[in-house]
């Protein structure tokens, strides 16, 4: 059991996905108006945090949006250990959030 875990870790280290790969996969499949990919793995490329703003999310529940992001990263997910989707917003929602954070309510 322990050995399997170690082997898997080594494989991930060799096969590691880059931030750029994740970003380009999401760009090509979800044509986002805003995207941010953060490598949270500390360099081995197995753990990412993503924010995606896309018109394709319009009218879709959060679960479906996350499914779309997961679907766009099917290949990459094989080598990613952890993917955190911190934002999956429509452009409208994103603009609202941006104006809220930049103009604190008095």
């Amino acid at each position, binding site marked *: 059991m322990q050995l399997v875990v170690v082997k898997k870790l080594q494989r991930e280290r060799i096969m590691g996905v880059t931030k750029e790969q994740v970003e380009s996969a999401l760009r090509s499949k979800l044509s986002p108006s805003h995207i941010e990919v953060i490598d949270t793995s500390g360099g081995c490329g197995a753990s990412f945090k993503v924010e995606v703003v896309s018109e394709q999310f319009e009218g879709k529940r959060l679960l479906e949006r*996350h499914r779309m992001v997961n679907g766009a990263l099917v290949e990459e997910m094989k080598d990613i250990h*952890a993917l955190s989707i911190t934002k999956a917003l429509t452009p409208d929602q994103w603009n609202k959030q941006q104006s809220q954070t930049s103009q604190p309510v008095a």
Partner: protein
Amino acid sequence: MARVLSNMLFKGFRSMEYTRATASASGSFLQHGMRFSTSVPNDPDTHDDFKPTNKLESSEITLKDIVEQDVKENHVMIYMKGDPEQPRCGFSSLAVRVLSEYRVPIGSRNILEDPELKNAVKAFSMWPTFPQIFINGEFIGGSDIILNMHQNGELKEKLKAKSSE
């Protein structure tokens, strides 16, 4: 009558803070098994022979059936890395912390203990990562979604839906 009794017994355990679903398969066995297994799995002194087992070669019950039964019988069901008492991953830990806020019984299974179950759950929900949370038999999502629903109040509503039954 026996059914009523075993239901009462089952409910009794469900009211514990966490219900640990046993790995056993059939409904009646689950209810009987629960009685003996709830306190067992985390005990380091327990011999492997006495642990619930997932060996299903001799029965026709598939892992998918087990997952279906889990999510049907547990108002809140989480498939996670580790146990609610001892999560083995930050995301699983986060999901348990969020759910614990609502003080509802949580059924759980540790997918690290069973790679086959892990794959069965992934196929069932068509979701690639863990934890995975089900409420009222419905797949809710992973830790990002549960956190989001906690923050915007949706989780409260989802959990209420059942308790008013």
